[in-house]
């Protein structure tokens, strides 16, 4: 499975997410970006491993922490950045912002400000795909906290009993906002919840892009072959606060540093070098290109015009 191109795509996708997020954090701190920001830094292997296991037309739905999913699904950095700036050229013409990016042309059917809210909707997309015989898989990203929502339960039950081509990717980063997993559920492995639906459950190391890819590929193949949905838990960690500005009274610096040792990008970089898939200078070049693309996206976002207010109040219905 692992060849040079594919390894390169994996690595650059993760780097792209990391650098995009670092830039977003910086712009947000400089008060250039309105609204709120939930950084995906630390969790890059999950979005990357999953999305690279998909076909271009497959659907994904995302969360408040959604930039990584979008980028891994190949959406335009420019239109994303413009959306963060609230501009007309953004994906949602400035109506959505960071928590509500969507690119239907890429199968990215929407991030979500409601925790767990996207799970039933993604399930509906899987149903649509099945009924229209589109052969598309629908992947739904959500967190450990979201797995305690009623919407999670009803959607997974439906997907299982209707045998829908869906993959439920739980990004277990051990916290729901400030609440540690041990305080919000009496289990360790969320994948076990699959049992409740007669669904296939699996666990990936969310700090290891190859582990995520492998499990996601299995799940997507199962879904595509009519073998039913999967609940795939990816164990991961977010490095920054829940939102930019989070005082983080709920964990120690030490805990964060421990997790950083497992950094998914550093680990995979080492792997590709050791396995002679890429050279350091190739990686440097790629990183440089990504940085340039991001900088360009920032300029685009900054310079883009604002959406027209009249238009914004006149387009409620088609």
């Amino acid at each position, binding site marked *: 499975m692992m060849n040079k191109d594919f390894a390169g795509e994996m690595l650059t996708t993760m780097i792209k997410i990391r650098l995009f997020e670092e830039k977003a954090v910086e712009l947000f701190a400089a008060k250039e970006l309105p609204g709120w920001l939930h950084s995906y830094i630390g969790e890059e292997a999950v979005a990357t491993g999953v999305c690279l296991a998909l076909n271009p037309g497959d659907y994904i739905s995302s969360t408040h922490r959604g930039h990584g999913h979008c980028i891994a699904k190949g959406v335009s950095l420019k239109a994303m950045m413009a959306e963060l700036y609230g501009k007309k050229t953004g*994906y949602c013409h400035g109506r959505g912002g960071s928590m509500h990016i969507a690119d239907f042309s890429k199968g990215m*059917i929407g991030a979500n400000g409601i925790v767990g809210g996207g799970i*039933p909707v993604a*399930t509906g997309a899987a149903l*649509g795909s099945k009924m229209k015989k589109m052969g598309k898989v629908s992947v739904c990203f959500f967190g450990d906290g979201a797995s305690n929502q009623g919407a999670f339960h*009803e959607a997974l039950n439906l997907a299982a009993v209707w045998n829908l081509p869906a993959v439920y990717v739980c990004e277990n980063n051990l916290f729901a906002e400030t609440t540690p997993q041990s305080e919000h559920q009496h289990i360790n492995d969320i994948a076990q919840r699959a049992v409740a639906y007669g669904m296939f459950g699996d666990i990936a190391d969310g700090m290891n892009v190859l582990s995520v890819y492998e499990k996601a590929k299995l799940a997507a193949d199962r879904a595509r072959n009519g073998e039913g949905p999967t609940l795939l838990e990816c164990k991961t960690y977010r490095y920054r606060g829940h939102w930019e500005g989070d005082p983080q009274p709920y964990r120690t610096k030490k805990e964060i540093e421990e997790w950083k040792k497992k950094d998914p990008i550093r680990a995979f970089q080492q792997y590709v070098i050791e396995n002679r898939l890429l050279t350091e200078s190739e990686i440097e070049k790629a990183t440089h290109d990504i940085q340039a693309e991001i900088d360009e996206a920032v300029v685009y976002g900054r310079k883009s015009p604002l959406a027209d207010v009249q238009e914004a109040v006149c387009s409620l219905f088609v």
Partner: protein
Amino acid sequence: MRQISYREALHEVLDYELQINPDVFLLGEDIGPLGGAFGVTTGLWQKYGNERVRNTPLSEIAIVGAATGAASVGMRPVAEIMFCDFLFVAGDQLINQTAKMRYMFGDQCQLPLVIRTVIGAGQSAAAQHSQSLEGLLAHIPGFKSVIPSTPYDAKGLLKTAIEDNNPVLFYEHKSLYNMKGEVPEEMYSIPFGVADVKRKGKDVTVIATAEMVHKSLRVADRLQKEGIDVEIIDPRTLVPLDMDTIINSVKKTHKAVVVHEAHLSYGPGAEIVARLADEAFDYLDAPLKRVGAKDVPIPMAPHLESFVIPQEEDIYKAIKSVVD
């Protein structure tokens, strides 16, 4: 013209749409072999099978979510929520997903879905199966809200609802299912936002919905004998709301009474009155009156239920109070 029931009128549209449009499908609790709690889908599962007429688990969140997601990728689902009382089991899906998805994502998708549900009291079904909650989601931008009162309207409005590319809430009154009326055999659409004058009159305008249209019509007959000529307008859709027809009537009658089965306070009738009090102020000769359910949960015992739900006598009194 042939007479069929409100139930049959709805059924005809569902049958037709399932036949002509492969993207249309139905989903809901017990809509399969049983044909739904009120029999609207009777026979459709037998005719179109499991895939097109989908019995769901007892999961309103999943029903609304599945319909929304499927609509966003090109299907045209018609979901049934057995009683409107259960809509808010899926409250978040409706308010934060279905209503907002298209707009919030910058018009990237269409959302052609219909949610049929049942309103109304009259069966001693008590507080959790008798509500008329059509006013709540009318406040949430992103839905069209339809509330037919006759078999004819039911057919034409449901046709329009399924053709619409936006989320439509379709409220059927449980006491009307057996009501018969003239309905053409052929298919026709009734545009949204066009009120219907159910009775012409010159002395007072009554704006009524669902079963209250019929109660009001009976009251109007009674009042006619007293020399009071009542005009009755059925808005048919709450969103969009046809204020033109209502205001034109009030320009003539100078008096208005709004009647609905929903609870009085903060109910949908308040909006109609508020718009009249603004847009037709200069034509008004009398206080604007509302008749609605009393502000308590609907009780089970028939005599208590009738007392809480607007009766003809309540409508009669309200009209008399403005014409006297």
